[in-house]
């Protein structure tokens, strides 16, 4: 009986021929086969839950994609609502610093050993709390949310604009960064996403732009412990070192143009000059010992506006909301908040000379310059190509076809960098449906574990084991320390140890012994229906020979499951 059902399933899966489609492939009635729907759900999300293939088959891929492109119209389950209700995601950077980040600075220079130790311990606990909240929210959403396309895009864009959760203040801002700067823009205009990351304190801290200062300028004394600079040498104390190119370089190399995007070292230097003064709140202008670290007064007094209200009044000076915030007194030193996330622009540290970036003359005008260069970068054809190549690599193949990248880039340039339109172009392309790409891309560890949980109808009750697996697999959540993010290719993830590890995890899930999840009542047949576009003779023969209670683990550890 079981054997029969399984064989039948396999027969169906193996049977569909692949006609050539026009470039509105999704609308084609041809896309009704299980294989096509599995392929689509594997790419536009982290795989189907049991029963989902049939549901999508009924509504049609076109309609399904329309819904996915408007994620806010899809209701989230309670598990998600619960997981995202936490400080790490809800609070502003300023509040997070105040509540979770300050502990690290609490013990002053003259504190006793015990006080310092206690402060350190408190800081560590705070960081862990923020990390756990952030990781739980991410994992529960990836596993449970019906907004699957958005979840893949959050994974993609976070990685594209990567920050490292253990670098200094990013310990407390990691969740806010994803929630405020990445997620809301994941399907919008690239320029908005770029602007959000460029104005988020978490990014400005991670890539050191908060230190980027007009050459020869004195600086505030926020040498922070978290950045690993526990005690500054007296000579370097209370002086920034002038220009810091780090963010400027990665902004062009990684975030926009790409390494071969046609910029020079001079462009990097000029862009760095444009970005001088853009950072996080600190006592600007080198005036004394202040800044985030030392100020003991509450950042937001009672009755002060919520972060959301603050966000609505983007661009307004934070001083309006409660006076003396994070060391920025009403001393008129030219520092003011920019954007809605708590970033500051310090005119005193800005280089007002004129610059030349990528052949554009930028007159010295202050923070407007930043918008100007972000416009230039976002509109640049190299950016279109770079972004589209990466999207196609993530969604289709390690080496995506040039014809597809070119179609997507055309859409990018014609549609003002609208990510939803670019994805539509991709999903509707012939290339996307080329059989050579079906079940051919090796899963990243993240995709492996999320898809295994979705395909087996599992829900997370405790993400510890899953986060632990990702760490062991070399892909800890928010733990990529370099700005290039994790690789998204087989080269990076396929190695003997990793494969054996996956198989062992698969067997644990199959046996119902994987910690921290509840698994649905799943059979090998229903599991195969969720992911297998085709199974090799070797695999199906082995499955048939295996006792029924071990088949789920076997399928999850099969070569076909390692790919998507």
């Amino acid at each position: 009986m079981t054997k029969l059902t399984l064989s039948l399933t396999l027969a169906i899966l193996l049977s569909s021929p692949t006609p050539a489609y026009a470039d509105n492939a999704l609308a084609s009635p041809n896309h009704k086969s299980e294989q096509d729907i599995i392929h689509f759900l594997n790419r536009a999300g982290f795989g189907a839950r049991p029963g989902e293939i049939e549901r999508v088959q009924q509504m049609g891929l076109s309609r399904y994609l329309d819904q996915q492109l408007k994620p806010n119209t899809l209701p989230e389950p309670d598990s998600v609502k619960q997981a995202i209700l936490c400080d790490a995601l809800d609070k502003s950077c300023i509040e997070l610093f105040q509540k979770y980040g300050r502990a690290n600075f609490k013990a002053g220079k003259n504190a006793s050993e015990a006080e310092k130790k206690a402060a350190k311990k408190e800081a560590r606990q705070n960081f862990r709390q923020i990390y756990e909240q952030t990781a739980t929210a991410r994992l529960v959403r990836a596993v449970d949310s019906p907004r699957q396309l958005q979840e893949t895009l959050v994974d993609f864009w976070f990685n594209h604009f990567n920050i490292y959760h253990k670098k200094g203040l990013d310990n407390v801002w990691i969740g806010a960064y994803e929630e405020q700067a990445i997620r809301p823009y994941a399907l919008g205009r690239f320029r908005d996403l770029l602007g959000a990351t460029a104005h988020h304190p978490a990014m400005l801290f991670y890539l050191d732009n908060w230190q980027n200062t007009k050459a020869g300028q004195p600086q505030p004394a926020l040498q922070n412990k978290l950045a690993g600079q526990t005690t500054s040498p007296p000579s370097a104390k209370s002086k920034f070192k002038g220009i810091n190119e780090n963010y400027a370089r990665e902004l062009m190399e990684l975030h926009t143009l790409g390494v071969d995007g046609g910029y020079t070292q001079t462009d990097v230097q000029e862009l760095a000059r444009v970005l001088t003064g853009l950072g996080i709140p600190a006592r600007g202008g080198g005036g004394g010992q202040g800044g985030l670290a030392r100020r003991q007064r509450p950042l937001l007094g009672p009755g002060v506006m919520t972060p959301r209200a603050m966000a609505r009044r983007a661009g307004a000076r934070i001083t309006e909301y409660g006076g003396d915030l994070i060391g920025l007194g009403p001393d008129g030193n030219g520092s003011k908040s920019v954007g809605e996330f708590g970033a500051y622009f310090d005119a005193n540290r800005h280089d007002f000379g004129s610059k030349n970036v990528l052949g554009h003359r930028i007159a010295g005008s202050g923070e407007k310059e930043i918008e100007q260069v972000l416009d230039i970068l976002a509109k640049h054809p190299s950016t279109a190509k770079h972004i589209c190549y990466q999207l196609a690599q993530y969604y289709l193949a390690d080496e995506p076809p040039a014809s597809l990248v070119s179609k997507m880039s055309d859409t990018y340039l014609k549609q003002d960098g609208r990510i939803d339109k670019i994805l539509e172009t991709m999903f509707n392309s012939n290339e996307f449906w080329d059989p050579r790409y079906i079940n051919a891309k090796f899963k990243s560890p993240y995709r492996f574990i999320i898809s295994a949980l979705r395909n087996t109808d599992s829900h997370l009750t405790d993400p510890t084991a899953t986060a632990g697996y990702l760490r062991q697999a070399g892909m800890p959540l928010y733990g990529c320390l370099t700005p290039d993010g994790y690789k998204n290719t087989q080269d990076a993830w396929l190695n003997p140890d990793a494969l054996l590890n996956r198989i062992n995890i698969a067997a644990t899930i199959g046996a119902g012994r994987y910690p921290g999840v509840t698994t649905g009542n799943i059979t090998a047949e229903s599991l195969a229906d969720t992911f297998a576009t085709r199974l090799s003779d070797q695999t199906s023969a082995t499955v048939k020979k295996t006792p029924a209670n071990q088949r789920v683990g076997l399928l999850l550890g099969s070569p076909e499951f390692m790919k998507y």
Partner: protein
Amino acid sequence: MSNINNIDDPMTRRDFLAKTGLATGTLLCSGLATPIEAWAQIGNSKTAATDSKLVVIFLRGAVDGLNVVVPYADPNYYAMRPRIAVAAPGQDNAACLPLSNGFGLHPALGPIYPLWQQKKLTFVLNSGSPDPTRSHFEAQDYMEIGAPGQHIITSGWLNRLLSQLPDNKSPVRALNVGSTTPRILQGKSTSATYAPSNKRRRAALDNEVVEQRFQQMYVGRADSLGAAYSEGIAARNTINEKLSNEQMMANQGALPANKFSSFGRQLGSLIRQEPKVQVGFVALGGFDTHVNQGAGKGQLANQLTTVGQGLADLVQALGPAFARTTIVVMSEFGRTARENGNGGTDHGHGNVMWVLGGNINGGRLWGKWDGLSAGRLNENRDMPVSTDYRTVVAQIIGEQMRLSQSQLNTVFPNFARTDRSLADIVV
């Protein structure tokens, strides 16, 4: 300036040989084009490249090098470290052990002291990564990718070294003790990872019937998954088999005191029993001693005991294979010369690298030492980096493993190896 006469000697023995033509007949007859290759030839006259091994022990968290190799003859040392200085030899019941030129070894490293006396152990003073970062993660990353300051390189230098060694097809060419593949081993060549614990948790694939089923699905596949599976199983079998031999022998003696003290014995025994192992890697943590690090005894001493005992076990377990093995111990940066207000030390710059090996010119110190006076410190704070860690490693692998300059350039890209002061560190 230098209080060690031979450390900073500009004319090394090998330079001398090359310049005066007094080298062996092998060199004269071989007609080698460059002095570098000539050195490599001489360096390997005793050892074939294919069976030379390199083991890297990474001490994460920045070990306090000034308390590993203690400059006890320098009064500044005691002035700067009133609470944590290690006493000069004979001055205390936890005093350092005399090395040379006024330096001593931390007493917790007693287990490797005999190797110093046998001239199989040396230290390179004021060495490390030239990048000024004092961030652990950044510094470790730079050190492991082998390209300080360059974000564009993602593979690790130990992995690139594998790509330059003869591919003996063994699944255990590279052994990594731990649970994840560290940056230093990431890249195209495969490595085998095993946990250092004594009792392994049984996984699904340890069950033969289950393993057989997966084998049926994977083996014979045309794609790289099939190959990866076979390699993984082969590596696992080799490690399990050799380790169980080793466990049986070990069980007759005392059990290891803690999880990590077994790293040396296990790794050494694997390398001895499986000649195809070419590189090994172990990372040990717990060296970020900001608070209460202690002097001859205390927190740091406890950590060093693990390292010292592990290294001594490693050498012992290697047995005859030690003759072909070099062990390099490194850390991402050093610590401040002065102790801080909490009886600890903060993030610094230069450190000391430890080198052990059958072919190492040990029993003397290497590197450049300018003392601890304020004007000689880096940023009036910590030790300078006078010797790039890549110079140390390149010298060792260049000679022991017979790598050409262009191969070394693959291991350490964009690194101009101009510093010849360590030309004699390999016998």
